[in-house]
């Protein structure tokens, strides 16, 4: 594996960091990596080519920003362009002036139309609308039935005059549903149609007929975020066939990078309106172009992280910490201070999610329990100041008191003390310029490899990358933004208590 885009870009620009101005060669080197990243994210080749050309033109013509290094300049342009395509015409669902608003769903088989119909209905209902679901998929076995169950679950009426499974005329059902909705005063009609292939002319004609019969305010093209290169062909077929007004991206809770979003948005020029991201009927939200751009590039939300890190990680505090370490006076109090420092940067989970490469560890992130930190804090706060400064004096009776005071068990207290000792040892090693072994943190299986696997040995010495991802990002940020970090000192000040290990 080649690592994620940001890793590769750092590699590409290792020798160019000091340069302020972009040469065409720099740009091309960066764009090669970007092209690859986009293709690996399943962005369609033609879209990638057009995109890369546009970025290149802009990068060559752009003013040179002093604040950023060449890689960052290009990445920033890429990011802006991506967001522009994904959300250039970001808009909300449009409602009819005179109810009912009619929404037609169309897409390939298995893209998630029926489930989405339910989610959309619930979302609309929660906003005070009175939606009606229409079962116009009379093709797939029991699609009608499925919609009825979905409707039941979200408490929305379903118009299903035909049993389906090949029986009934979907055009007639759709047409009748509008009359029904008007009579019964439903404010929104959501028409669930059968899945169809772009190349199936007969079925595409049926979709066109349905559209003509109901004159929808929105024709939403539903597409699975795991779709590969074919997304362009499919999107084009639906755009040219039935004609679409917006896009819904489904199954975003998977780990696909979702390049299809970019393909569809650029080919059709239609906005992505919603993102569907889970099994529950609530797992549905408006589409955020910036998040999607980061996801496609697998860059993490680097820019945000840089800002937050700079704001919150107090440099003088870090220096004081480093001194302490060097003198071997790192105590549980410092341990807690560090934790709070990190806390200031926001929820750890969201911090970690912003990290480049987090794509690979989303699963672990989901399992990480933020409350673990609360528990650790509770234990430390149940200690006397003397105990915090000198953990050595913690005997059995003190430990049992602390356990009671913090509502934890003695085992928890023991494991914290052990972790602290390991951390202290490790930080001492770092302060002396060595490479630490990272202690594991409970509840975070597999994270050890994240911290320790990457670039450990080769970064030994002056560039010492912290094993802690949050800390490493802080360093990275400092380095990227051109700050001079003093040797290993701020490094050593990094949190070593194992969060993220």
């Amino acid at each position, binding site marked *: 594996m080649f690592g994620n885009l940001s890793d590769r870009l750092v590699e590409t620009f290792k020798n160019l960091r000091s340069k302020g101005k972009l040469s065409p060669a720099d740009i091309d080197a960066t764009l090669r990596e970007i092209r*690859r990243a986009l*293709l*690996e*994210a*399943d962005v*369609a*080749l033609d879209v990638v080519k057009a995109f890369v050309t546009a970025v290149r033109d802009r990068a060559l013509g752009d003013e040179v920003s002093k604040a950023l290094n060449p890689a960052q300049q290009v990445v920033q342009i890429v990011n802006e362009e991506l967001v522009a395509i994904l959300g250039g015409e970001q808009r909300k669902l449009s409602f009819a002036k005179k109810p009912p608003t009619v929404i037609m769903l169309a897409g*390939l*088989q*298995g*893209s*998630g139309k*029926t*489930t989405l119909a*339910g989610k959309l209905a619930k979302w609309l209902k929660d906003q005070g609308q009175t939606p009606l679901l229409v079962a116009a998929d009379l*093709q*797939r*076995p*029991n*699609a009608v*039935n*499925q*919609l*009825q*169950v*979905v409707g039941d*679950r979200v408490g929305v009426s379903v118009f299903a005059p035909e049993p389906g*499974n090949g029986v009934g005329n979907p055009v007639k059902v759709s047409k009748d549903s509008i009359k029904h909705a008007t009579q019964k005063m439903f404010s929104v009609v959501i028409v669930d149609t059968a899945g169809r*292939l*772009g*190349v199936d002319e007969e079925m595409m004609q049926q979709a066109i007929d349905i559209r003509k019969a109901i004159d929808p305010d929105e024709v939403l093209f539903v597409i*699975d975020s*795991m*779709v*590969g*290169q*074919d*997304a362009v*062909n*499919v999107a084009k*077929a639906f755009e040219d066939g039935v004609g679409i007004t917006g896009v819904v991206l489904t*199954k975003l*809770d*998977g*780990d*696909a*990078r979702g*390049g*299809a979003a970019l393909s569809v948005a650029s080919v059709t020029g239609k906005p992505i309106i919603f993102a569907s991201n889970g*099994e529950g009927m609530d797992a549905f939200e408006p589409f955020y172009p910036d998040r999607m751009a980061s996801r496609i590039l697998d860059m993490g939300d680097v820019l945000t992280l840089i800002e937050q890190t700079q704001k919150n990680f107090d440099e003088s505090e870090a220096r004081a910490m480093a001194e302490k370490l060097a003198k071997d006076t790192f105590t549980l109090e410092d341990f807690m201070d560090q934790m709070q420092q990190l806390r200031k940067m926001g929820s750890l989970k969201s911090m970690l999610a912003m990290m480049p490469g987090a794509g690979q560890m*989303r*699963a672990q992130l*989901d*399992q990480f329990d933020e409350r673990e930190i609360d528990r650790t804090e509770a234990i430390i706060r149940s200690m006397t100041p003397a105990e915090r400064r000198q953990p050595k004096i913690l005997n059995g009776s003190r430990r049992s008191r602390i356990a009671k005071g913090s509502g934890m068990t003695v085992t928890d207290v023991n494991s914290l003390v052990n972790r602290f000792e390991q951390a202290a040892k490790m930080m001492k090693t770092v302060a002396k310029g060595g490479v630490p072994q990272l202690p594991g943190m409970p509840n975070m299986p597999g994270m050890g490899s994240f911290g320790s696997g990457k670039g450990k040995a080769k970064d030994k010495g002056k560039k010492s990358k912290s094993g802690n991802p949050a800390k490493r990002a802080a360093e990275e940020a400092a380095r990227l933004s051109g700050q001079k970090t003093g040797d290993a000192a701020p490094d050593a000040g990094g949190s070593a208590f194992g969060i993220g290990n």
Partner: protein
Amino acid sequence: MAGILFWKKKRDAEPEAVLEVEPVAPVPELVVEPELVIEPELVVEPELVAVELPKRSARKGIRSLFSRIKFDPQNLDELEDILIQADFGVDTSLSIVDEVKARAKQSGAETEGELKAILAAVIAENLERADKALNLSDGKLPYVFLVVGVNGVGKTTTIGKLANWLTEGDWSVVIGAADTFRAAAVDQVATWAQRAGATLVGPKTEGQDPASVAFESVEAAIKQDSDIVIIDTAGRLQNKTDLMIELDKIRRVIEKQAAISEVLLVLDATTGQNGLAQAKAFADVAKVTGVVLTKLDGTAKGGIVFSIQRELGIPVKLVGVGEGINDFAFFDAKEFASGLVS
């Protein structure tokens, strides 16, 4: 070529006679290979007959790589782009082109026809596998098929087609509706079971543990003396840890009663590079033995199966080419490759 031979239980005109039949039976009209005659010590082992099942072709489902971009024998680098557009992936496409170039150089091939033949050969060789046939021949009845995959790839439809194909060959088929999660999934598979003439074992209560449905399905198949039980599972994204654990449980619970003959991963041909991640995760948890590539009747080429085969060694066994009950076929690497380059 005639149909493909598989082994199933012999069913006599007298319906209940099956279990009583003595192990070494007279050879019926159909050819029985000698090594598959049951060993004498297994007294209750039923008699097996070789059955011919219709061979189906996916030819009509495979679209040429060169339907939109013409093949240019002068510019083999362009081939890389064409392969990328068929979801072969960046690295794989490059390595295929390198291989084609190397072979072309060696053999002095330069015409369109020659180069296409080399390309087809490279693709076919990489996809060809000795174990691509469905495991329906070891005689350990009932065969158990577990069908897995992410949401919306066509698991249920595949099961319907497979069941129908088997019942047409006079097999007795049980379908286990272990997708107890998605709304009306049980009804959907029930409709297919009815069309195919298979017995359905579904949950007794709503939201019943899928593993218990799977268990009961196998139990019923054994009790009814069926030839095969095909178990449908809920679609699950491979990064959902809890759902993958559930799948692992389903597999373990089935194995309490019978060995699993096939774990089929259903993969939508439109799937991009995430297909590899899917295959990895399902192979890990469910011990996938074969891939079913569905929806090949669309414009997608399903190039990701190439990487799946190469990196994980999982053969493609079946392809789906439409919504009709007969719209599927056994995967044939040569047919697939020649369809792609045609």
